[in-house]
């Protein structure tokens, strides 16, 4: 974290009363720590995106193409004709304000334009001006305004200050979904080359190498081998994890951070140990070595381009069905978009657990199962032996990731797994979990150091709920099933609740998993001694 980052006790001095003048007369300040840098031309070009150029949001001149206004308005027209959601959400908001204090960015910043209603009005005001009669005639009175460079800059600032978490849409009486508006507003910005590096570079990496981190196939193989070595050291068992193996029953796809970043990695070890223990016939793919999809944060088209690899690889390898790892936005794409974008998956079979025989009817068209569904089913059938006391040194809570909660409804499976693998599980307050869960504050491509202040602000509601269970129950481990969470929550915890670590649900499974032929386990995957085995751990 940078030195000049505002201190927590300063940050919480938040005034929720909007200052004068009105929102049409204020401009965003591109202050360090509150925005993301522009995409570097090389990667914009690699993806064949328009208007690659070197630019930064702090520049006065954003080097817009001459006809930028026509491009944006035509782009808006096209999208109004393509998305009922957009046309409807532009028209039916009554500004009742129910969404206002539901956004983590508003709660953490007090910036009125972070109220979902006003974030949407930034786009709506232009829509009214150019696409409605009332707006054309009445102008400002009915909330219409011209599209200007300043408006465009404002869009850039605030639509990259929305994590598409959909919490507001839970509370909206018409289900207006700001994620939908943000996705489309970002598409419009992309049309004139206003995209951010933290999204375009991972997308370009993913397009080229198969994953966001740009790890090449042999590097992927190395990572897997490395994990196998680690696991051998911990458990005493040498296991195998095939990559690009044709004829396997199942293709397993994880977000790339799982095999390359901390603390994701311990969850990755958990998967490997679990699959070995049940003798699963599966394979990784180096070509489809990314379950996550930064394309979603860029455009519907980019989402489709990146997602295409999963089905293509499943077909090439001749697997029967696909299993997916712990990841939030990955599951938004797989659950709500993949079949539509790149299906039908008629070359696959309805997923059946080879261990328990359970037929996953809820995935019978898409043919992809969430690892939590898979593991919960294993536990339910007694297919694995878990010793939850091996996690007794941890007091855990569970953070529902936005997308599995609000774009899927995967709430009970991870909880079931946690209860079976941990003895000390404590829920955060009701209004901060399940469908009302708070975003980590860094999703949708905003999890970088560049916008660290906004991240700490946006993460305040989540961190504060963690603090509550930390103070009350001594919680020291925040579990989640999202790669972005695992990447960004540790920073958030360091800032707000330093005593709490972040981990994967399958890290808990791995810790608790009793494996055949394992050595006497004294430490967890991180090398921390287990309760009652501290002495042995030192030996």
């Amino acid at each position, binding site marked *: 974290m940078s030195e000049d980052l505002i201190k927590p006790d300063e940050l919480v001095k938040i005034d929720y009363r909007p200052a004068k003048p009105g929102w049409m007369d204020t401009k965003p300040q591109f202050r360090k720590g509150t925005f993301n840098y522009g995409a570097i031309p090389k990667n914009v070009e690699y993806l064949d995106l328009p208007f690659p150029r070197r630019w930064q949001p702090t520049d006065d001149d954003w080097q817009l193409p001459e006809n930028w206004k026509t491009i944006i308005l035509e782009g808006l027209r096209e999208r109004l004709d393509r998305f009922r959601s957009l046309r409807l959400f532009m028209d039916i908001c009554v*500004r009742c304000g129910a969404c206002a204090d539901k956004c983590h960015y508003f709660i953490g910043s007090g910036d009125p334009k972070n109220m979902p209603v006003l974030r949407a009005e930034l786009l709506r005001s232009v829509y009214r001006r150019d696409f409605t009669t009332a707006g054309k005639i009445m102008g400002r009175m009915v909330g219409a305004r011209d599209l200007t460079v300043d408006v465009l800059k404002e869009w850039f600032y605030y639509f990259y200050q929305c994590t598409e978490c959909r919490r507001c849409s839970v509370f909206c009486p018409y289900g207006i979904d700001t994620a939908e508006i943000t996705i489309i507003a970002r598409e419009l910005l992309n049309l004139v080359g206003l995209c951010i590096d933290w999204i375009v570079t991972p997308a370009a990496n993913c397009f080229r190498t198969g994953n966001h981190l740009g790890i090449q196939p042999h590097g992927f193989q190395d990572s897997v081998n490395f994990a196998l070595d680690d696991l051998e050291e911990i458990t005493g068992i040498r296991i195998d994890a095939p990559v*690009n193996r*044709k004829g396997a029953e199942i293709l397993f796809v994880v977000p790339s951070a799982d095999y390359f970043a901390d603390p994701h990695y311990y969850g990755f070890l958990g998967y490997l140990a679990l699959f070995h223990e049940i003798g699963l016939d599966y394979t990784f793919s180096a070509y489809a070595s990314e379950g996550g999809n930064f394309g979603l944060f860029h455009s519907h088209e980019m989402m489709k381009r990146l997602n295409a690899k999963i089905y293509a690889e499943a077909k090439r390898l001749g697997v029967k069905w696909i299993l997916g790892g712990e990841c939030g936005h990955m599951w938004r794409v797989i659950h709500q978009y993949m079949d539509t974008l790149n299906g039908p998956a008629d070359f696959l079979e309805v997923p059946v657990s080879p261990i328990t025989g359970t037929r996953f009817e809820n995935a019978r068209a898409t043919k992809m199962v969430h690892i939590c569904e898979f593991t919960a089913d294993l536990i339910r059938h007694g297919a694995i032996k878990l010793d939850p006391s091996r996690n007794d040194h941890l007091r855990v809570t569970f953070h529902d990731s936005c997308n599995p909660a609000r774009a899927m409804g995967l709430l009970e499976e991870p909880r079931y797994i946690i209860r079976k693998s941990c003895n000390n599980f404590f829920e955060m307050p009701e209004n901060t979990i399940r469908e009302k869960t708070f975003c980590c504050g860094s999703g949708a491509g905003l999890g970088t150091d560049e916008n660290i202040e906004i991240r700490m602000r946006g993460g305040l509601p989540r961190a504060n709920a963690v603090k509550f269970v930390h103070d009350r129950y001594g919680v020291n481990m925040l579990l989640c099933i999202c790669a972005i969470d695992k990447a960004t929550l540790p920073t958030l915890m360091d800032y707000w609740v330093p005593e709490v670590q972040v981990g994967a649900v399958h890290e808990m499974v791995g810790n608790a998993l009793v494996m055949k032929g394992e050595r006497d386990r004294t430490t967890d995957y991180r090398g921390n001694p287990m309760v009652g085995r501290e002495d042995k751990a030192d030996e």
Partner: protein
Amino acid sequence: MTAWFSFIAVLVLTAVVFFGIEAAGLRFIFGVIIPYAAVAVFVVGFVYRILKWTKSPVPFRIPTTCGQEKSLPWIKYNKLENPPGALATVGRMALEVLLFRSLFRNTKAQLRDGPALVYGSSKWLWLGGLAFHWSMLIVVLRHFRFFVDPIPAWVHYLQNLDGFFQVGLPIIYISDIVFLTAVTYLFLRRVVDSKLRYISLASDYFPLFLLGGVGVTGVLMRYFLKVDIVGVKDLAVGLVTGHPVVPEQTGVLFFIHLFLVCVLFAYFPFSKLMHMGGIFLSPTRNLANNNRVKRHINPWDYDVKVHTYEEWEDEFRDRMKEAGMPLEKE
């Protein structure tokens, strides 16, 4: 400023009809032509807006899920908050339309020392909104006694229910009190809450003043300044049957009431009031969460440039070979 603008707009409208009737005697225009025109604009405009919305397709199935999905057979799922099929979706929509389910979730975030964020239950908006919409519906339904002759039994039943407490003469309708109170509340919260004041547009205040004006004139006519009710009924029945008779004795108050209603009708399709039709089309609410069960088709789907496996292997073949990874082409 925007509130004043809307208030003055409604005053001007009132003045127009006042002078139109009192000074110019334009009873036929305000009693017959404008009502017909307003209803025509309403119907055509409403249908146009709905068609315009439905013309844009729903490319992706994007319900907002607010409870456990249907997955493994032993996990209890939440039918109404995360509907797995059509029937449950109808149930979810019914809750949304009739009882404002989502608004019922409303909380109020407060930042206290510590810092401690607390989210208190905040049901006032839900209550105010529900009271407003339901009382308006009852008032509208009660008005059938003017348009239909003889008065249908269900209208009598509704009137009796509405006047259940039998207070006052004429008996005070509960819905009248609730309606005016709710409109006042909906207005006041916009002015008092700084956040709401900040986001409110003239188009948010205008319908409130309009509805308030309609309500006040209606109440004045019923309880305080009696109008020629027989003439009103003749006009109403005449309008419905296509043989309108303009009442000569009915006071200007009635025409103000009628004109404001007409403005509301004509304004409706061009305004946020269309949320009445729009809510039924909201793709985050009216779709089942059966995404992985049933394929959803995007009608404008198009092919995109992808990076194929072959291209990928071509680029990395040598290094993959070195690492001993399986290849398609050696």
